[in-house]
């Protein structure tokens, strides 16, 4: 078969009749009457084709359809050019500076400017409504404020604007669509003045804290200021965000300062013992710290509001722990859940459990006497009372919930 003649099919993209030869037929050459003329006039583009590898004659095949553009329109406005370009659609035009380029997509000089602008305006109207210009200006003004630092943070570093606009915007769909949070007992949150919100803690990473914060702000308009462990303020990125979200260190000074400043302060006294407990121990409250939160509330005379969160235990069921790695990394635990690290980053998607958050009846501390905060027995009793309330509420909420994902 070595001597079989191979006849190519088609013209390999060149104009012609598909005869397989390298040169187009005379009929094809006739289709491009301007080419020869143009070469004679334009030496600049002519040199490029003269030395071209596949041009044996004056009328190279590649320049067969090359025509000059509408020179007269060079200085017209874009809109007029647009009209010209549209009129020219059937006629082949060239764009290559060397003059050897073939443009079969004749008359495609890009999307006209008017179309761009129209699309942008229509898009803006679609996204922002009819009042889009004002809204965009507002948005830009907000952006400018962010970019030039002209916003205020309080002495703890809390950035209310950022929290409301960014953090809560991210949490809202998660809270409403994914966890379908049901909040009860909102009337127990005072409208003004300091109060200490005490909650159970679970879920391997503190999503429950974020959700409680979001729910409080969403329903009452007040910000819940969380107290965090020092690990939070030691960890890069987390540290930078925590203070912006309103957190501060869980220490006596800060707790009392915030409470006497009339803030709504949130504590999770179980700490890492609660959040990192195995799934088998779900909804069993751990030790409630050393009762420091109660003495802070007593010293400032604010009520303690027990909060029970059901649903956070199931988002990342903690089935294992790697203590050696945790020690190495300086973390309290390294979690293993059914999906993490098995599925990698996908394992970080929380399971869509059904959440119930109940704010219990406030425990008043202002009735106790002057030195109550320094009476350890009294402090521990109140701590136990709060813990017991939360535990009982957890049990009743669990009975109420039809199923984990119900």
């Amino acid at each position, binding site marked *: 078969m070595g001597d079989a003649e191979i006849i190519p099919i088609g013209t390999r993209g060149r104009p012609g009749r598909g005869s397989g030869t390298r040169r187009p037929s005379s009929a094809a050459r006739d289709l491009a009457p301007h080419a020869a003329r143009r070469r004679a006039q334009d030496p*600049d583009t002519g040199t490029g084709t003269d030395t071209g590898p596949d041009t044996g004659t004056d009328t190279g095949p590649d320049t067969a359809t090359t025509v000059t*553009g509408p020179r007269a329109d*060079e200085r017209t406005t*874009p*809109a007029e*050019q*647009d009209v*010209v*370009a549209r009129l020219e659609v059937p006629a082949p*035009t*060239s*764009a290559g*500076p060397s*003059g050897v380029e073939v443009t079969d997509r004749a008359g*495609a*000089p*890009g999307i*006209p*400017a*008017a*179309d*761009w*602008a*129209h699309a*942008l*305006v229509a898009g803006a109207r679609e996204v922002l409504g009819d009042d889009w*210009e*004002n809204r965009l*200006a*507002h948005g*830009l*003004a907000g*952006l*400018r404020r*962010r*970019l*030039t*630092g*002209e*916003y205020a*943070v309080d*002495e*703890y*570093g809390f*950035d209310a604007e950022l929290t409301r606009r960014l953090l809560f915007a991210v949490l809202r769909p998660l809270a409403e669509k994914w966890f379908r949070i049901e909040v009860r007992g909102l009337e127990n949150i005072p409208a003004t003045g300091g109060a200490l919100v005490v909650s159970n803690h679970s879920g391997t990473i503190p999503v429950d804290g974020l959700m409680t914060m979001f729910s409080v702000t969403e329903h009452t308009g007040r910000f819940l200021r969380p107290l965090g462990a*020092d690990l939070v*303020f*030691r960890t*890069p*990125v*987390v*540290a*930078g965000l925590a*203070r*912006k979200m309103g957190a*501060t*260190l869980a220490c006596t*000074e*800060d707790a009392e*300062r915030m409470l006497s400043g009339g803030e709504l302060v949130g504590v999770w006294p179980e700490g890492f013992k609660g959040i990192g407990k195995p799934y088998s121990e779900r909804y069993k409250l751990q030790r409630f710290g050393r009762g420091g939160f109660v003495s802070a509330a007593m010293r400032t005379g604010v009520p303690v509001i027990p909060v029970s969160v059901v649903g956070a235990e199931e988002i990342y069921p903690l089935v294992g722990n790697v203590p050696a790695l945790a020690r190495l990394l300086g973390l309290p635990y390294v979690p293993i859940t059914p999906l993490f690290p098995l599925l990698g980053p996908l394992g970080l998607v929380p399971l869509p459990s059904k959440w119930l958050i109940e704010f219990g009846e406030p425990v008043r501390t202002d009735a106790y006497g002057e030195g109550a905060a320094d009476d350890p027995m009294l402090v521990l009793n109140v701590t136990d009372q709060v813990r017991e309330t939360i535990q009982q509420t957890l049990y009743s909420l669990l009975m109420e919930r039809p199923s984990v994902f119900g």
Partner: protein
Amino acid sequence: MGRVVLVTGVSRDLGRRSAAALAAAPGVDRVVGVDVSPPRGDMGGVAFVRADIRNPVIAKVIAKEDVDTVVHMSVIATPGTSGGRTTMKELNVIGTMQLLAACQRAPRLETLVVKSTTTVYGASSRDPAMFAEETEPRRLPRSGYAKDASEVEAYVRGFARRRPDVRVTMLRCANVVGPHVVSPMTSYFRLPVVPTVLGFDPRLQFLHEHDLMAVLEHSVTDGAHGTFNVAGEGVLSLSQALRRLGRPSIPLPASAVGGVGSVLRSARLTEFSPEQVSLLTFGRGVDTTRMREVLGFRPRYTTASAFADFAAHIAPGPGPGERVVAGVGRVLGIDGVDDTDATPGPGRRGVASLAGTPALGGGAGQGGDARG
């Protein structure tokens, strides 16, 4: 009869100007400035005595000039300007010891004002949000300026115990900023690209240089006994400060910041001490309730306005953030981006500004021929 004030550390700019301000203050008769090297600028009505506070000569100056008030501000922060860490420590600690020893022997002494620093609180992840005067630092400073300052404070407390008749005012001042201040903090903000610690956004407090002079004068004339935090109202986060300054920043991992610091030190741009790195990581806030209520001093500048005054002197014009927004606004044909009640023109203006850019649409098709 007015007071006779002795001011140490007048060779440096802040000391010199504070001394000059004191000399002009009502109720002050005479101000004697002391330092090892002569001041480089105008001293106003201050008499300069060249003396080293590290040797007992200072006692003679106090006795001879009949000094009744001593303002000690020669605790220096940077080893670079004074010839190494050893000299710095000697100046700070031994100098203070000698000065206090001389003060103890001066029967006419009534008032001692010491300028200390909030650096004595350190900066760590276990810090409370706001340090009160009685709060112990969570991590004791182990080196450098912070250690010197806390040792100086210990000696001053010892002196206050031994001379209960002397009113001792210790001022823990936040980072002083101002158009003329040269300090590790101000040279940090003067860097063309400011390195920050990745993933941290510390809270900072500033004190304006005018307020520093004002608080010194206030402490000399009608101060109160005790230790006081002195800082402008409010806090700024570092990211916010850099945005207001309009300087680009480059976040670096915490471990790399120290290395960058030593490069900058060798380039003589700024000094990055370990205390400063920890301040730039964890930040610090001090409570100034006692300053306002007991000392009775109110700074004229807040932290934000003190920084704004400093920023206006080192970075004129809009920052990159502002330029970006202005550019976006211009492209979309929207004016008054900075007004919340912006009233832009009709919708066609956006179209017009887009159609005016020749790079878009029909212009591209004719590009080749325009050159031909």
